């Protein structure tokens, strides 16, 4: 059972690490805008897709 206090200590250290990572993320602006990045990636990616949907002539079959 000697290992038990060590394990508990390690878990506390991991919690500290998680907190540190979260604070870093929050300072870098990661959570400032939860909406646009999701849209941005969709819109930039969809360019070829939508064009091919509406103008079949352009459909060269490339991804």
């Amino acid at each position, binding site marked *: *059972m000697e290992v*038990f*206090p060590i394990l*508990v*200590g390690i*878990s*506390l250290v991991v*919690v500290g690490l*998680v*907190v540190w990572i*979260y*604070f870093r993320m*929050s*300072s870098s602006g990661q*959570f*400032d*805008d*939860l*909406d*646009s*990045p*999701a*849209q*941005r990636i*969709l*819109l*930039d990616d*969809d*360019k070829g897709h*939508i064009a091919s949907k*509406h*103008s079949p002539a352009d459909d060269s079959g490339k991804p």
Partner: protein
Amino acid sequence: MSLGQRCYHCNEPVPAQGLWSARVLGEDRAMCCAGCQAVAQAIVASGGENYYAQRTSNALDPKQLDRLSAWADLLEDPAWTGRHIQTVPCRIKKSGQALANEETDQNETTLAIEGLRCGACAWLIERVLLQAPGVSLARANASTARLRLRWNPNTTGLNALSQTLLKLGYAALPLGAGQLEEQRKRQEKLENRRLFIAGLGWAQVMMLALPEYLHGSQIDADALLTLRLASLALCLPVLLYSGSGFLQSAFTALRQGRLNMDVPISLGLLLAFLGSLYGLWAQASAVYFESVTMFLFLVLGARRIESVIRRRTMRRREELSLEPPVLAHRLEPEPGDCPPWRLQDDDLIRVPSGARLPADLELLRAATELDISSLTGEPHPVGKEPGDFCPEGAINLGPELHGRVKGSGAQGSLARLSQLAEAAAAERPQWSHWADRVATKFTLGILTIAIASITWAIVFQEPLDQWLPRLIAILVVSCPCALSVAGPAAYAASLAQLLEKGIAVSSPDSLAKGWALKTLAFDKTGTLTEPESSSVVMQPMGNKAYTEAEIWEFVEQLTENSHHPLAMALFRASASKFASAEPGSGRSALPAVQAIEQKPGLGMQGQTHNGKRVRLGSASFVQASPATPSDANRLEGAEMASLYLGIEDELIAGFWLNDRPRPDAKATLLELQKLGLDLWVFSGDRSDRVRALAKTLELPCLQAIGELQPEEKLQKLRHLQTSGHNVGMVGDGINDAPVLAQADLSIAVSASAPLAKQRADVYLLRPGLRGVAEFMNMAQRTRTILKQNIAWAIGYNLTAIPLAALGIIGPAWAAVGMASSSLLVMANAARLLR
């Protein structure tokens, strides 16, 4: 023509099909106006068509932008740029080469973007700006409607970039880099961090508490101590970091001799923590560290949801309260109109009657009266003598005034901007005031029960580990969140929803006034009817001493600065006459009409160059001795003219206006009637015309009274009020400002006088009357939701507190009960968003 068709771009109704359209995503889409069409075409041309496929909210109506585009000029003014633009030194790559697009020092700033509403907007803005020459960074934030921009000052300028945005249907405003902004951002970050820490702490402490929950008796003393010490190590920082907001607020309140909802929360937290500490030291049978963290997390979570809703409402209000800059009419040193920030110290300017002061002034010449209600809330006009100081933003109620500018105009304009933002931000106190009032009584009750419980324990000499959990459970389970969070949340949700529908509500109290209404009175001209669409027929009369061009010129001069809907219709008619006239028949060199003033409820009056009185208005106003002119009856059957123009006592022309009811008037009135309201029409117009209108609307219940002077309207309203009704008034504030002020609830339609817009409880941002019915509907729905929430909160507390006091519910379950109760009432409030 299909009536229900909506604009593909901005979702406003399409007035005439086939007139405007744009090809978007491979199909022709109907548009409501040339503005939307141009914006849609610009978006497609810029390659941002996907915006339409991905957007989650409709675009802003470009007409709303026109009024704000003048602010863009301030973006180039040194008074703003000096403070809000940072220079970013050029970055050199390791290879010694400059980064592409950044070969020189860059400018950087943050702007507020009106119309930036969803992620797709952000994408479109970034895409187009990054294509523009000289822009090296564009980051649009859809949750705060802000844009961070970095550009090369040698290649492009903010003015050019704001023009680019305007073409896409967005307005860049010189807000956004202020102190308030920073403060708001910091606050939000702190709220998120506190919530995260509490959540993480709860999960960890729960994990450590689980062995004790499941096998408490079998764990050896050393292991138990380790678990409890680890719990303490996690719980203490969580309590100090995440709970500091509650503890500080409660401490401040107690020191000032007040009670607020944070007092029982803090007491619960501290008691549970100190009790656990004692349990740890005395090796008691239970500790409550997990209850502390869970309680913190749940309360913080509930508050966070409420503050997200509130911030969203606040930001929309802030956008809407922003008005176009007041144009300054400069007389010296160089005469001409200019934006207020171009004014210099000691410039001489004039301010027309009824206009807002564009800068701080020292009054010259004659005395005047100012309305300073928007600055200080003082409801009565304030008299000013020559030499007195007149604050920027006040409204001139007297005749045209002349004044000398004090201080530079730019400082004033900037101050005004931040003032508006602060006014929108200050929305909070009203709600928390309400919440605190409820919480105070509630807290008092809870503390009484808690003290009774301790007394009980002392009298019957109970051991500590029996009465302590009971006490903690009482304090935790009874959290007044259900009462004090749910009210503001319901108000916030319905205000947010009303804003989406184009209805600006001055304060949450207006909703309460709305649902108490029994009677609603309407003004006729400009409110029920639509003078904008009316046609004007003119017929010269009398000895025909004046040519038609001269008559129209009198009209144009008399009506130029009036906001009365009939005057505005006449002004438009005269302006279009001159615009379409052939060469030679244009304006004659008629000397200017002087001393023009508006007689409320009567008409316009002025003086010709040779001192004769010229009047425009009803026959009785224009002619001292009213006699129906014989040739007036020959036009359009036997109907008398709506307005006359007269010089001294002689009528020189009559004007026939046919103002039609607004297209949505009937549907709105029907809906209001279904809500159980008594409907009245108060009008200054002739009774037969008012009755005719009531007849076209085909509503037998509509009680219409004509020929009312403004004072008579007021009397009528008071009469209805004294017979025990709550009476609301819908008007445009032109002949009915005192009536609007006297009404229990005032609703100003979209084309109202500035004063009415500002003072009205409810202000419709979109033309038409639909908003009136939508507001009344929403007010009644809000009442239902509030009633349900309060009923739940009372029922829950009446059940849960006795259970906790009897020891049936432990501290942990108390926290769960409290939180689920809070979440339930908030979910109920969120129904208003649909």
